[in-house]
């Protein structure tokens, strides 16, 4: 083969295959990308929530990007319990201060990091959340303590617009 001289025809074949492959990829990509979130889905990126009526110990669930977000006004005991946990006891070590900037308010995605179920409030072995699907236990800071979930429940981007309103997203 190596002794064979490269002919014009070989060049033509190679060039045809190369252009054909690029062309096929250019046609396949739109077919794949059409399944990604469309413009109307992306447009619903942020939600504002009124928290003026919430007392300590109350959780509300709001929908953000089709997913539930837990907003919990934690009691002093819960905050103390979350802060008392040693980092080395955690599967996914995160300080409570980093998860709740304002310790009274915990804002997190109410989605179990195992397979996406919505954990139940005030359940489980750590007084936090418990996922009924496959038995993951979360503490009062939403950190995974026991069960198959690999990470803590996610903290979305949010800020206090004023004392009574949280903007998520």
């Amino acid at each position, binding site marked *: 083969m190596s002794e064979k001289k490269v002919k014009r025809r070989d060049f033509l074949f190679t060039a045809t295959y190369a252009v054909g492959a690029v062309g096929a990829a250019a046609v396949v990509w739109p077919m794949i990308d059409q399944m990604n979130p469309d413009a109307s889905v992306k447009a619903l990126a942020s939600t504002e929530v009124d928290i003026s009526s919430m007392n300590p110990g109350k959780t509300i669930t709001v929908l953000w990007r*089709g997913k539930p977000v837990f907003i919990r006004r934690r009691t002093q005991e819960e905050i103390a319990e979350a802060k008392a946990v040693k980092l080395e006891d955690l599967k996914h070590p995160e300080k409570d201060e980093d998860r709740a900037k304002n310790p009274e308010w915990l804002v997190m995605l109410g989605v179990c990091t*195992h397979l996406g179920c919505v954990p139940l409030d005030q359940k489980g072995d750590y007084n936090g959340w418990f996922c009924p*699907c496959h038995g993951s236990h979360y503490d009062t800071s939403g950190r995974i303590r026991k069960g198959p979930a690999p990470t803590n429940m996610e903290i979305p981007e949010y800020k206090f617009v004023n004392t009574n309103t949280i903007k998520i997203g």
Partner: protein
Amino acid sequence: MSDHEYTPKSKFGKWFNDRLPLLTLASHLTDYPTPKNLNYWWTFGGILTFCLITQIVTGLVLAMHYIAHADMAFDSVEHIMRNVNYGWLIRYIHANGASMFFLAVYIHIFRSLFYGSYKSPREIIWIIGIIIYLLMMAAAFLGYVLPWGQMSFWGATVITNLFSAIPLVGEGIVTWLWGGYSVDNPTLTRFFTLHYLIPFLILGLVVLHIWALHVPGNNNPVGIDIKKPSKDTVPFHPYIVIKDGFALLMFMIVFAFFVFYTPNILGHADNYIEANPLVTPAHIVPEWYLLPFYAILRSVPDKLLGVVAMLSAILILAALPWLDTSKIRSAVFRPLYRQFYWILVADVLILGYVGAMPAEGLYLLVARVATAYYFLHFLVVLPILGYKEKTLPVPLSITEPVLGGSPNLALAKNKENFKD
């Protein structure tokens, strides 16, 4: 492929057959030499074809009334149940038909496991069968999402989230599958499209499955190669057609029992509650036919490894022709394998049972032991058994154990040849 030359009798038939040999194909299928000792476990191929056709026909009819939209899907299913003429019947046939399909396919698969039908020269038939089985599971899952009840929604959430276990690209794949940041309308419409597509893919693979079967011919309960056609075979029509037809009737009685007497017993009451993204049902379980794999998923405490274990449990079947090192096909002549076979059957049933139970305490322990044994069976027991097992003598022909009777094998063999 045809075992004899075929010439149509009529002039038109001959003219047509010269241009498109459909009549030759029909003749091949009619006369196809089949081992004469096939038992009723061999009738499930025909039953499965019936199941596939039933699902396609009832599915087409349901699609005329169903609306694939997150706001309307649930109501449109109730509309089918209450308003559409015979809608209740068609939907119950379709929903229970899925369960009947899996019941038949499990019997079909375990028949192959018992009689070694996956062994050379039938590996390709077996692998095509495994692909069909995978597609069936995909179709069943996608179809279960369409009524947009609570189990639909959360089942879809859990199963699509399995892909998030893939390192690096997992989250991106899940978002791509959903067409959003959660299971929602874009997910429903694409699931409907794919649910519509898959049965036709299965139909195509069934043609290949049968084509591949007709090359070596059927395995049989004795598991030996037979000459065909010979006095060990009978033509497919009418012998096998009648037997398959009778078995199909029996099967349809069971089918009709579910449809008419307990149409919801195999489903979950939660799916009559419309999908709610804010509330997960207290206890999520898949349909019964997926429970063993669900138990394997949950028995592994790590997310990625759990998903890997579940997929391996299915894919390991494709490697079975090479994992089973024994040259003897039928378990009838494998006294040890026969025992391990029944242990495996029990193991899968136990996995199915614990899959339906909460993943804690004793259930979790049992699930872990059963999962370990499942893999042990395929990866350790089968390869070793082929070398260690002392098998029983295999007859030279199907007829021999009945008519040959001679302790002198050479004589029996000679007699066989003589009778041909």
